[in-house]
């Protein structure tokens, strides 16, 4: 059970954003993806999650190509992403945001809603419990009934993660989960991700906060100008000459 991208090429006009990117996240893996701004990290996420279509190359889940699947189908297949700029449902409460993410609801069909009310109520009770657990896990319980637009930037990041978890994903693509999150909470998110990872969920994480990221992931890949220039354990990668040159601007 692996997540793999193979030789991804993506052009925007004359600009080659991704130039033959290959990367594998093993089942239950925990991989960090770093690189300077404009390196193509978010574009890679967009391609993996089906929001953009690559010019060449393939995205595979368990060796099965996902190219024929649109974004919603990929999420249902177990590959769920979050967004760099949080995309909360701003007028729904935090709890409703989580409930909305739960898959396979009979009550999301008008026929089911009006003709199977008992079943809808039972399912609602089950996902309400799931949502409650997730709220507790992410320390969002105190704000559960506030509209999501009132959350801080960091809380919105947590909500994004929480919604992804409601899908029972096999792989989660986290786009800068620590941006705007206060340091205490970062520690907690790190702990949560570790727990989830121990429970078998694979993570690929874009993050600029290297200190927090290296505390979390045992494996790093570095993307620069559309190519993976290094990958491996954090210590080896961060001391790699090419990485220091490209990513750290050759200062150190």
């Amino acid at each position: 059970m692996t997540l793999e991208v193979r030789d991804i090429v993506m052009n925007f006009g004359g600009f080659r954003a991704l130039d033959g990117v290959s990367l594998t996240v093993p089942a239950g893996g925990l991989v960090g993806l770093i690189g300077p701004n404009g390196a193509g990290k978010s574009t890679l996420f967009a391609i993996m999650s089906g929001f953009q279509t690559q010019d060449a190359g393939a995205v595979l889940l368990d060796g099965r190509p996902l190219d024929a699947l649109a974004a919603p189908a990929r999420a249902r297949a177990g590959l769920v992403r979050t967004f760099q700029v949080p995309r909360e449902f701003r007028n729904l409460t935090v709890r409703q945001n989580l409930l909305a993410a739960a898959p396979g609801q009979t009550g999301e069909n008008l026929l089911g809603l009006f003709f199977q009310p008992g079943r809808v109520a039972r399912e609602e009770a089950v996902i309400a419990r799931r949502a409650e657990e997730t709220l507790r896990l992410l320390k969002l319980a105190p704000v559960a009934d506030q509209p999501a637009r009132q959350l801080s930037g960091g809380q919105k990041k947590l909500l994004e993660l929480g919604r992804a978890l409601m899908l029972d994903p096999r792989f989660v693509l986290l786009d800068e989960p620590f941006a705007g999150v206060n340091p205490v909470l970062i520690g907690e998110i790190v702990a949560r991700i570790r727990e989830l990872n121990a429970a078998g969920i694979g993570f690929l994480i874009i993050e600029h906060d290297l200190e927090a990221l290296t505390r979390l992931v045992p494996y790093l890949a570095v993307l620069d100008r559309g190519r993976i220039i290094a990958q491996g354990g954090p210590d080896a990668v961060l001391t790699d000459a090419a990485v220091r040159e490209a990513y750290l601007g050759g200062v150190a």
Partner: protein
Amino acid sequence: MTDLLQHVANGVVQGLFIGMAALAITLVFGIARFPNAATGDMMTFGAYAGLVAQQAANSLVLAGAVAILAGAVVALASHWLVFRRLAGRSVVSLLVASIGVAFMIRAVLGVVFGQAQAVFQVPLTRAQLYWGVRVTPLNLQISQVVVAALLVVFAVLYFTPIGRQMRAVADDRDLARVSGIRPERVMVALWLMAGAVAGLAGMMLGIKTVVAPEVGWEMLLPAFTAAILGGIGSAPGAVLAGLLLGVAQEVSTPFVGFSYKIAIAFLVMLGVLLVRPSGLFGRSESVR
């Protein structure tokens, strides 16, 4: 065959009107980023202004100048009073507000001029035959005026600093901002230009047909279609698509009947949007 050529010739004249209306729409869509549903009524406003001027001074040239001016003024006023206050708001706000502007322009015209149709006093002339196709000197003159106006617009867009700035904003607003383009100046130029084009188009349409409170509104759907077909924000595309649509409408008239022109426009629009949901040459939005 001659019949077909005749329809093509009629379609070209009709297409020039659609093209001008589409040009006014695509300029606003490309730069202010919303489909301006008041474009049609801005045309009607120009037509009535030209009519008043012609009746007062008995000069078509002066009437044309007044129509251009009136269109520009009403467009700039709607920018200052309405659209500028909605900058940064959702597209539905701007859309609904543009419907509001359309209704207010139509209301003013209705109160002042009533609902009756009016016509421009133009000399009746005999149609000439060119390669078996009947063309009236009036249609020829109208076409010449429209083509000349389009040339002026394109000259401004492509050969003046403000025109280059307008195109830069249409291409990439953020990039334009960081390269020091003052957005409000561009907006004022945009509305003056779009209004002037609409005003003149309205008067030319009025000369060719009649002046009535709904003439502009009835151009709206074909004009939107041409703007989408030509690629939102593309001025040459809008004019070419307008011509194409005008010809398509006229050529299909013998088969579907005069009154279903609007359905032709609608079907073309659906067809284009089916193939390319973001318009024929539209940018596809990226999700990051």
